[in-house]
């Protein structure tokens, strides 16, 4: 609104400035195309990097793809000595730890988002929301340190024995309580994706038109009934998008998982067992790999991880974008 309040003299000065510069217009217009191309160039760098990542990963995993073919993803053998590489245990570990994380984080995130949007006083909501967001700011390696030296011993001493005593008949909760392993990794991953899922869910719940919720309340529905039958139903596709985003994050999380998963190329039916994920294998073995085949197999692991996360990102993004359009925002 500054222009509306501008003094006439300012306008006159500005106008004379325009008049003066009209004479050297060619000099002004030479700046603009250059500026535009500069921004295009910078935007193109992003596309080039994406293309470069795919190209480099494919090129470097060529050797392994040719040698092992599809067997790479079904064979559980990972033996650098005999040069036999199969990704099954890494894929399994990635899938299981991500599944645990999503199963734990999604209900918690929905409940937190509900609290932030519907229940809590705005001041409380701001404080709690800010604190939850801080969970996202803590670096992965700090989760790893805390996970290995604090949380894993806690799991071994209290949580795992309790689980074994109550649900020990299930093969999921058998075996020695070592602290480290799939379950611990999954719980830490859940903590790490919690802020992302709850932030997106919170935004989705905010998008629900007030009039819809109010008509629910007007009919005498309780908060939970309005949430379940109006807000969640209205925002369902947004919540699904949030889950996908969380999933994609958990898949590629590296350091925290590397600290606590045990880094063992095995597939254990028990959640107490050690395992590995694609990302943790890369973190542990990439700088040690000297033979071309070993390195190539690691590149193929990376390629698989990249392909999966890209896929999930695209699905999540298209999903959320469609949602944005139907809800009329953005």
């Amino acid at each position, binding site marked *: 609104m500054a222009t509306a309040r501008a003094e006439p003299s300012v306008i006159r000065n*500005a106008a004379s*400035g325009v008049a003066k510069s009209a004479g050297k217009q060619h000099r002004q*217009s030479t700046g*603009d195309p*250059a*500026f*535009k191309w500069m921004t*295009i160039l*910078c*935007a193109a*760098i*992003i*596309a080039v*990097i*994406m293309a470069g990542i795919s190209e480099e*990963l494919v090129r*470097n995993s060529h050797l392994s793809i040719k040698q092992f073919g599809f067997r790479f993803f079904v064979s559980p053998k990972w033996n650098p000595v005999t040069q036999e590489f199969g990704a099954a245990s890494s894929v399994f570990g990635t899938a299981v730890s991500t599944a645990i994380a999503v199963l734990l984080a999604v209900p*918690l995130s929905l*409940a*937190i988002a509900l*609290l932030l949007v519907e*229940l809590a006083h705005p001041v409380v909501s701001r404080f*709690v929301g800010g*604190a*939850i967001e*801080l*969970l996202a*700011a*803590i*670096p*992965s*390696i*700090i*989760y*790893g*340190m*805390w996970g290995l*030296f604090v949380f894993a011993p806690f799991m071994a001493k209290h949580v795992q024995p309790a689980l074994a005593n109550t649900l020990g008949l299930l093969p999921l909760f058998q075996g020695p309580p070592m602290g480290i392993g799939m379950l611990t990794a999954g719980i830490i991953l859940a*903590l790490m994706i919690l802020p992302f899922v709850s932030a997106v869910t919170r935004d989705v719940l905010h998008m629900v038109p007030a009039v819809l919720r109010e008509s629910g309340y007007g009919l005498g529905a*309780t*908060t*939970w009934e309005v949430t379940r039958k109006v807000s969640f139903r209205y925002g369902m596709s947004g919540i699904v998008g949030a889950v996908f985003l969380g999933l*994609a*994050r958990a*898949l*590629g*999380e*590296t350091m925290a998982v*590397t*600290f606590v998963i045990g880094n063992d190329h095995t597939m254990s039916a028990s959640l107490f067992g050690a395992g590995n994920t694609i*990302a943790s294998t*890369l*973190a542990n073995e*990439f*700088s040690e790999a000297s033979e071309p085949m070993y390195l190539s197999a690691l590149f193929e692991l*990376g390629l698989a*991880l*990249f392909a999966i*996360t890209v896929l999930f990102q*695209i699905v999540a993004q298209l999903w959320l974008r469609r949602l944005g359009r139907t809800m009329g925002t953005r």
Partner: protein
Amino acid sequence: MRSRSLVRRRLVDLAVKAVSGMSAMVGLLFLAWILYEVILRGIGGFNRAFFTKLPTPPGMPGGGLANAILGTAVMTALATVMGVPIGLFAGVYLAEFGQRGRVATTVRMMSDILMGTPSIIIGVFVYTLLVVPTKRFSGFAGAAALAVIMLPVVARTTEDMLNLVPNALREAALALGAPRWHATLRVIFRAARTGLLTGTLLAIARVSGETAPLLFTALNSPYWPQSLRHPMPNLTVTIFNYAMSPYPDWKRMAWVASLVITVGVLFLAVFARLILERRRPR
């Protein structure tokens, strides 16, 4: 239509509210637990030597991680110098030139995907690009990997912040005869500067705690940073190496380094949010 007693509905409602409150408590509890342990275990070694001395071999008391602190600072600064301007310009393209067009939509999608790409993949990518051809791990490669991570973050926040600038301001600048670059850099950037600063600070906060992309690019080193063409000491990879070592001394050192990183990153993140909040119209 099923009818249910009001008492039962109220009870369910109350239960959900309780669960909801408890969930938030769980989140807060874990945050407090992590911060508590990091402070408790790190504060003991938080002294002058830590910030001024080189690391010692295991078993020898004293020593610090001054080299790693310096290395992390140098790489983060270099990554900022490389990543932020490119990100800003890419954001300008998305908000001012590309807008809803097909090219901009593609770039926007790609930068969102790049933002969600695991940082270890970016480390592998930079390894093939900068470490393999030169046959040596280098601080420059580490900074480049961090810059790649910053780039999409800065680009997307820049776009969002520029979109918040009212169109009237843009039109006013152009109507006064300002060229597009002048209108963008001098008028629109000025209007959006708090948002741009926040985006940049958040990007810096994010990369200064990164470990995975440095594992195969900057590596680590127990000496002072020599040049950008040599392996560069840094705090996060040092934490990883020390934590995995069998020496209690080194593990203690890893906790001190964790405290320094946590305090630094959280300070940046909170500071960035605060300046944005303060500028919000009330």
